């Protein structure tokens, strides 16, 4: 049996007529429900990201002030500045995410290919954020030095605490190859190692791979390939 597209159109039209008769809209319910109160995922993410950005900016200002105040001590200033670099990267990522979120919030009536592209780009940005967090884990001794000074007024660079700092620096260096390997795996479209695959599933690798595939499909769709 061969069915032509025009024949399908006729079938669809018949179905349309049947729906005309049987499809009902619950107007009473539609009047009762207050849809203004519904917080969509986008609005929730905007609120969350705004809060996150405010906290990060506050921390960034505090770190810069900390670096200036401890300028004579290069160890403390250096650690504060390295921490500030991570904060700046996080703020930049947040700004880029916010720009897409605001766009999605204000115009869900954009053409399908354009809007879907934005949605997938947002997913990729969120996963990249996770990737940057992975990089920062082996650098934890840097944050430790700053935190110890701020909360305990203790200088880990002083001879009294230097052994403690050294142990943490060694742990950080030991962790580095492992996290670099994981970071590289997150960039690959296909992860072959089952153990690594299971580990990365929770960190957004699946969403990133799926988002990238769909982005490629949209590009091809737009080009008519």
């Amino acid at each position, binding site marked *: 049996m*061969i*069915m032509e597209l025009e024949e*399908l159109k006729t079938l669809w039209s018949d179905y349309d007529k049947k729906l005309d008769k049987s499809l009902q809209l619950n107007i009473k*319910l539609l009047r009762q429900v207050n849809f203004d109160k519904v917080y*969509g995922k986008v609005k929730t993410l905007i609120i969350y990201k705004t809060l996150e950005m405010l906290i990060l900016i506050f921390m960034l200002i505090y770190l810069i002030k900390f670096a200036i105040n401890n300028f004579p001590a290069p160890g403390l200033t250096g650690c504060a500045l390295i921490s500030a670099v991570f904060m700046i990267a996080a703020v930049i990522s947040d700004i880029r995410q916010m720009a897409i979120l605001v766009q999605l919030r204000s115009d869900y009536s954009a053409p399908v290919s354009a809007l879907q592209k934005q949605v997938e780009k947002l997913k990729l940005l969120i996963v990249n954020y996770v990737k940057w967090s992975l990089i920062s884990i082996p650098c934890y001794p840097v944050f430790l030095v700053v935190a110890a000074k701020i909360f305990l007024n203790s200088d880990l660079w002083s001879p009294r605490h230097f052994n403690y700092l050294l142990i943490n620096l060694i742990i950080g260096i030991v962790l580095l190859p492992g996290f670099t390997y994981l970071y590289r795996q997150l960039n690959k479209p296909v992860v072959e190692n089952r153990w690594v695959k299971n580990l990365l599933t929770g960190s957004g690798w699946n969403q990133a791979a799926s988002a990238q595939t769909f982005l490629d499909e949209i590009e091809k*769709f737009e080009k008519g390939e």
Partner: protein
Amino acid sequence: MNTQQNKEQFIDIISRNKKLIYKVCNSYCRDAADRQDLVQEVIIRLWQAFDKYDERYKLSTWMYRIALNTAISHYRSGKRRNEATIPLTEHLIDIADDNLETELDERVKQLYTFINQLDELNRALMILYLDDNSYREIAEVLGITETNVATRIGRVKQNLKQQFAKI
């Protein structure tokens, strides 16, 4: 801000275009409970965008874009229960005659099977084409060129012939 008068106007628009919403949702969700969530989510999205609707553009273009964007995102998230919905005991859009689905011509069922085999974007193209939209309107909704629409429809035709030839 949305007023009561706006809401009445909105309900009128939804009432006149309920088939559009239902057909889009039905093409991306075959599960009845999931479809009801999607219908509700589409209506919420339409309501939230209603204030910004620009009357220079065709209402159906605006509705198709929002309905398709919501349906594709919902489909891709793969979730049954959506966060952007509120628990409702009754359905917003429903088929009064429960026998409609069972009464459907075997070939209409095949048509749905065929639509469901298409990827998210080609499915949107097919819905728009079957709903008798012009190539220009399809291009406007999807954000691609008219030539591209024509090429893709041609490919779908070929694909369709191959699909049904196997049956």
